């Protein structure tokens, strides 16, 4: 029995239990309690398996190579199906299973009034299993299979509320472009197989760098574009906006927190392992360029939105742009800050989508121009939303600040080290994007939670405890990861970065000690041990302490001078002095609509915004064309520079 509890089996358990849960819910899902128990149980086991692996993989630095049916490589070729878990896989596995767990807890009450709930849970668990399988898989063909599973599950979930306006359209767009991406991955896989006669990821990583030819370069372009569609980076960002706008909030959490991470994971594996091209400055340029365009373009697109969830969708891609930029720097600080931001992105974005879901659940709309003043009706949701908003806008001491701040330092450090003034521009774009993100969330706060409450929402209530609990978990993690960046660095990002910079240990763990050295010869990258350090000076805990003391001092002064004895409205009697000041007729008063805020900024950028408006036509043909153009450009880039 103890043999089954050996931790080397945990990766396969964590994938299997999700698929098993999916099938069990199909069979037994009629009963409401039973299906909730099955769903929560399977995601909890999956999460527990991942947490149990922290000690051997993250702390002891082991790489788990797991051959299904014990079909170990024979005759120099890895034929069997393999799973391989190094610190990088585990890092993504951890944040995925956390997001899936919270999303499932939230779903129980959030989806209670929908139809076809068994199908919902089945698809949700299929999606989760697909992404888990993708990040834990050790061979590239299984990665493709998992990509297919997660794409179709995500498409079906996008259209789950198919009576919502635009849901089917969004799902159809996603289906077409997503399938183009999957097809690209398949084609790339086939070309790699034709070249290297193996599908095992570790073996491919050993063979490909030494045997570059035109077809492997084309394969890289295909795989890169394929994973780009999964991460929704430019030019695939319009799909994300549509999909998030239509999908239930719990699914948006998965699409933004989990699906995009699978794309980022694929790109990291591709550039750091399979082709080991990240050392080339041209490749750093490719990733940083796409990252910066995604970052800036999507944050400006978000400023122009007037739907809560579409706005969040664009911000999601903008933050993924940060991750891609940082990862593309190919420095230790850059990579650690990039994946740190990936972790934080899952947490704060999940929190924000759940808050949007709570608003939608209670009011039935996410239109920023219609909402307002909900903070009095939904105080807890407001506080949780604000934590998420401060995190994503990088306000100290929340987690978004910690990781973004490391990204700024990494970018500027890179600029100085490489002597390339272009990276200064990257730093400036990162910093400006951050303040534009803040502006966008001020807009949401003003037009959803603060401002004036429309009369039709007089009877809105706070959401149920289960939904607040799910948001609370995310909020707590947002604060903790922001306050203890050194712990996150030590136990999560540093091992993962070390894994990324040591492709040879990944290869050796799979195929036997010394394989990488003998197969790769001169192409073997030098082993690098990443030591976590912060590039600048910032200690959030002592800041918080000082802030608390000052706050306390001011509060004491304020209270002793009777600051708290305020004249608020007492029950029943209305006094004119408690009314708002309108300087004239109240009747002509109208609140500044969400989409009209910041017009001083928008006015100066009106040509840019109208250009962007025309560009994002919403027509599927255009977006499919963008995908083709993107593929052609990346192929051209590969053939020219490599």
């Amino acid at each position, binding site marked *: 029995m103890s043999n089954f509890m050996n931790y080397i089996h945990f990766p396969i358990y964590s994938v299997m239990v999700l698929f098993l849960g999916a099938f069990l819910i199909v069979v037994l899902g009629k009963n409401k309690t039973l299906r909730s128990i099955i769903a929560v149980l399977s995601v909890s086991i999956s999460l527990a398996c991942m947490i149990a692996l922290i000690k051997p993989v993250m702390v002891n630095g082991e790489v788990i190579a797991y051959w299904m049916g014990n079909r170990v490589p024979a005759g120099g070729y890895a034929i069997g199906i393999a799973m391989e878990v190094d610190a990088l896989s585990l890092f993504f596995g951890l944040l995925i299973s956390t997001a899936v767990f919270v999303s499932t807890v939230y779903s129980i009450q959030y989806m209670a009034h929908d139809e076809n709930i068994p199908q919902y849970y089945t698809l949700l668990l299929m999606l989760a299993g697909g992404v888990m399988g993708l990040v834990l898989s050790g061979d590239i063909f299984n990665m493709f299979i998992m990509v297919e599973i997660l794409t179709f599950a995500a498409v079906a979930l996008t259209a789950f509320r198919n009576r919502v306006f635009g849901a089917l359209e969004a799902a159809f767009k996603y289906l077409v472009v997503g399938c183009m991406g999957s097809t690209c991955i398949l084609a790339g896989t086939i070309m790699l197989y034709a070249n290297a006669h193996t599908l095992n990821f570790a073996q491919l990583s050993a063979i490909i760098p030494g045997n570059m030819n035109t077809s492997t370069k084309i394969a890289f372009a295909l795989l890169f574009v394929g994973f780009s569609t999964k991460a929704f980076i430019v030019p695939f960002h319009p799909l994300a906006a549509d999909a998030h706008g239509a999908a239930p909030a719990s699914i948006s959490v998965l699409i933004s927190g989990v699906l995009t991470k699978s794309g980022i994971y694929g790109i990291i594996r591709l550039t750091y392992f399979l082709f080991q091209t990240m050392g080339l400055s041209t490749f750093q340029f490719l990733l940083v360029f796409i990252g910066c365009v995604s970052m800036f373009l999507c944050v400006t697109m978000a400023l122009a939105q007037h739907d809560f969830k579409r706005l969040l969708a664009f911000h999601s891609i903008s933050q993924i742009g940060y991750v891609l930029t940082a990862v593309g720097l190919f420095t230790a600080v850059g990579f650690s800050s990039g994946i740190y931001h990936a972790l934080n992105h899952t947490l704060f974005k999940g929190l924000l989508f759940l808050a949007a879901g709570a608003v939608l659940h209670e009011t039935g709309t996410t239109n920023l121009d219609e909402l307002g*003043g909900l*903070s009095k009706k939904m*105080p807890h949701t407001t506080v949780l939303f*604000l934590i998420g908003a401060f995190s994503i806008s*990088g*306000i*100290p001491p929340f987690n978004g600040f910690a990781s973004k*701040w490391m990204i*700024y330092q990494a970018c500027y450090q890179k*600029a*100085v080290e490489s002597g390339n*003034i272009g990276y*200064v521009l990257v*730093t*400036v774009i990162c*910093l*400006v994007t951050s*303040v534009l993100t*803040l*502006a966008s969330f*001020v*807009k949401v*706060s*003003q037009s959803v939670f*603060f*401002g004036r409450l429309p009369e039709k929402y007089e009877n809105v209530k706070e959401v149920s405890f289960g939904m607040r609990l799910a948001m609370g978990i995310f909020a707590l993690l947002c604060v903790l990861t922001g306050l203890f960046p050194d712990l996150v660095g030590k136990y999560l990002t540093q091992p993962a970065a070390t894994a990324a910079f040591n492709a040879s240990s990944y290869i050796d763990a799979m195929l036997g000690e010394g394989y990488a050295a003998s197969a790769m010869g001169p192409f073997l990258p030098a082993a690098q041990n990443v030591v976590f350090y912060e590039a*600048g*000076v*910032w*200690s959030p805990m*002592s*800041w918080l302490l*000082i*802030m608390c003391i*000052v*706050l306390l*001092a*001011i*509060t004491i002064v*304020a209270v002793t*001078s009777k*600051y*708290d004895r*305020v*004249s*608020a*409205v007492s029950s029943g009697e*209305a006094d004119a002095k*408690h009314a*708002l*000041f309108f*300087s004239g007729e109240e009747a002509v008063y*109208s*609140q*500044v609509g969400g989409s009209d805020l*910041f*017009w*001083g*900024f928008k006015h*100066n950028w009106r040509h840019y915004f109208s250009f962007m408006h025309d560009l994002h036509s919403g027509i599927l043909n255009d977006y499919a064309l963008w995908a083709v153009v993107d593929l052609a450009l990346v192929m051209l880039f590969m053939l020219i520079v490599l």
Partner: protein
Amino acid sequence: MSVIVNALVDLGYILIFPGFLFCFLCGMLLCGIERKIVARMQKRVGPPILQPMYDFFKLCGKETIVPAVANKTVYLLAPIVGLAALVVIQLFIPVFNFTAFSGNADIIVILYLLLIPALAEIFGAAATGSPFAGVGLSREMVTIISCELPLVLVFLAVGKAVGNAVGSGVVFSMQTIASYQAEHGCLLLKPSMIPAAIAFLLTIPGETGTHPFDAAEAETEICEGMLAEYSGKPLAVYKLSHAVKMLTLTSLFVALFLGGLGTGVILVDGLINFFFCVVITICVVALMDASTARLKIEQLFKYYWTVVSGLAAISLVLAWYGL
């Protein structure tokens, strides 16, 4: 025993110098001097220099009226949080070679900490639900965006210029910037840093919201915007915050560009520091306040992102090539 003494010393830093009490007195004094100078420039007699302090205590005695539709918690908490954040920033800015809490924040952190007071004011205003506050906070946010780009460029230029000399590539630590200046003389003497210093001086009125960059307050137009619904003690705290903000930004300028002029004696250094703050306030804030009219918000944005950012960018490029 030494732990207790250290704790008491730290508490002294936080509450007295350069913390709470120092911020209160110097901020109010700075504000009073500014008002007096503006009045003299406009051929008025002007209020006594202690007038902001009288105003503060008078407002404290007034009734605090919370609007019926406001979110009371946010409405009352926002001014306190904003003030606390400002005091904390003041603690992280070195007074020449003296820093109350070294190793707690670098220049990029201060850039982001500076957002907190503005944000607190925005959320407090949003919580009132007033239409004037809505317009005011929209403009305030655009002002923040406008000032952010020049500030970022100035900070990167300073980091690079100091990094060149120290030899570690790039330095954002306030401590290193201070000790560099103590050794090599203040940064303002470097020709490449002069455009950046001018750009920083031009962002001070934008950050503090004085003429011509006061579109967010605009008393005559939108009734002080974000403060429209505030009264009594919260309003007093806001007035204090505005005064402290002027002190914070001017002392940040002194720390970045005029460092190294201190004597080493804390009290004397504090006085010299404050003297520089007064000079900058008179030369930049008061002069512009008295001689210009309010810009429209889109003009403000354009001005900062072209003229001021351009100046800062010149410095950055010069510093980049080691001048």
